């Protein structure tokens, strides 16, 4: 096995009582990769991410990060949930710094990265505002910033733009790509929006209906910035759509 494998998932299975949600999933994610997981709604995508960050325990199987069992306390993992999850009592700036302070980074590093993130995400003007004073999309930007600020080895994103309108989504998708390229983080992005998956990822993991298994790993080797109207883009999008059809 080559050394640049960041995440190794082997035989991952999750049952809730008798309900089998994930069935024997195995795959690898390379360091610095941007992988999207697509699948029908309710197929267990979120369960899968929750297993990765130990919010849930697998019924069987293993998740290894850098060849060690995944552990958010040991590994530098970050998670962006579907709903904005900024801490309401911290300002935008303090929210972005929170994860870095937990990891006890040096004050000058924290300061430098905070400035980078605030600038990159256009949040400098609201740095002293509280989440309550922001729109949902802006709050989600804060959460994304908080995650990238940690320069995570692995960043997990669970449909973070599901509730955004299309204009904001396009903007934030570009922001994420920019931050991914800047920080070199490995990103695992869950979405049910296939256009989003093709636009963002280097590789798409296509899941089947519940109990979910991997139907196919599809490499997306389109040049960036990607043109959603190009022939290759549409071809890939339609191909993946066909793969997740269960009817």
């Amino acid at each position, binding site marked *: 096995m080559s050394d640049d494998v960041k995440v190794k998932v082997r035989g991952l299975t999750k049952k809730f009582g008798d309900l089998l949600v994930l069935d024997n999933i195995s795959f690898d994610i390379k360091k610095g990769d941007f992988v999207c997981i697509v699948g029908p709604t309710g197929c267990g995508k979120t369960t899968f991410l929750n297993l990765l*960050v130990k*919010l849930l325990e697998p019924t069987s199987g293993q998740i290894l990060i850098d060849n060690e069992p995944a552990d*958010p*306390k040991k590994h530098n*993992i*970050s*998670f962006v*949930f579907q*709903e904005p*999850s900024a*801490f*309401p*009592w*911290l*300002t935008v700036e303090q929210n972005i710094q*929170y*994860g870095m302070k*937990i*990891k006890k980074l040096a004050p000058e590093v924290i300061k430098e990265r905070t400035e980078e993130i605030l600038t990159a995400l256009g949040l400098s003007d609201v740095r*002293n*505002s*509280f*989440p*309550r*004073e922001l729109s949902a999309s802006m709050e989600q930007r804060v*959460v994304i910033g*908080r995650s990238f600020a*940690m320069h995570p080895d692995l960043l*997990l994103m669970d449909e973070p733009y599901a509730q955004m309108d299309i204009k904001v989504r396009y903007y934030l998708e570009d922001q994420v790509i920019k931050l991914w390229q800047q920080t070199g983080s490995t990103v695992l992005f869950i979405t049910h929006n296939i256009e989003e998956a093709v636009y963002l990822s280097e590789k798409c993991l296509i899941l089947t209906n519940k109990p979910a298994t991997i139907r196919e790993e599809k490499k997306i080797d389109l040049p960036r910035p990607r043109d959603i109207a190009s022939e290759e883009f549409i071809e890939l999008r339609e191909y993946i759509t066909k793969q997740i059809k269960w009817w």
Partner: protein
Amino acid sequence: MDSKEVKKWYYVLPIISILMFIVLWIFLSIPADSMIPSPKETWLRFADICVHPISQAILIVHIWSSLRRVLIAFAFAIFLGVLLGVGLGWSKTFYSIFDPVFELLRPIPPIAWIPLIILWCGIGELPKIIIVFIGSFVSIVLNTYAGIKDIDPLIINAGKVLGANKRQLLFEVALPATIPAILAGIRTALSSGWMCVVAAEMIAARQGVGFLIVQGQQSGDTALIVACMLVIGVVSMLMSTFLSKMEGVLCPWKFGKTK
């Protein structure tokens, strides 16, 4: 009516409401055999007790006696109430051990404790403080507990995935998220605390606003009773306003404005 005029009404209406209350009060106090003192009599009695002592103390000393009891009891109630509330909400083991006893004692009205506490502790300061403590403790515990339980799991999960350990989750995530609920509990506790201090003073005290009310009753001095009742109302209102301001200071993210 445009919105500016509507706004003006919101300022005028409370004044009208108070004036109507005073008019009604005057009206009820007019009959010669009325047991209700007129506003003028009440005001004069109030002015009198501000300078002439009853039981060797002027009004402000009596107010301070009551207030001191409330504040001491409150300090203990807040400390222990928040501790118990957080314990009940945060730890299942703690909940299993303490909740049955708490649920058993909680419905007992604080005033029902008065006889027993007087028997145990006599009629000094301590029994009054204990009664106020009982009266305010429960709502602080319940609100803190509800506050911890109501924390959005998403926020706790966000803390977990950012790598916060159990101590950090409690002190840096759960507790800040619960402060508004704790403050709401303190506000509720304030009214029951005052109720208890007056009740305790009415039974056994030499100073305090409740003591003055009993003095009024024993000497048929209705003006003194009403003046003291109004004093209780005003002091409670001032404390409530102070707490509202404190909410803005302690939770700027919830009640204040940064822009």
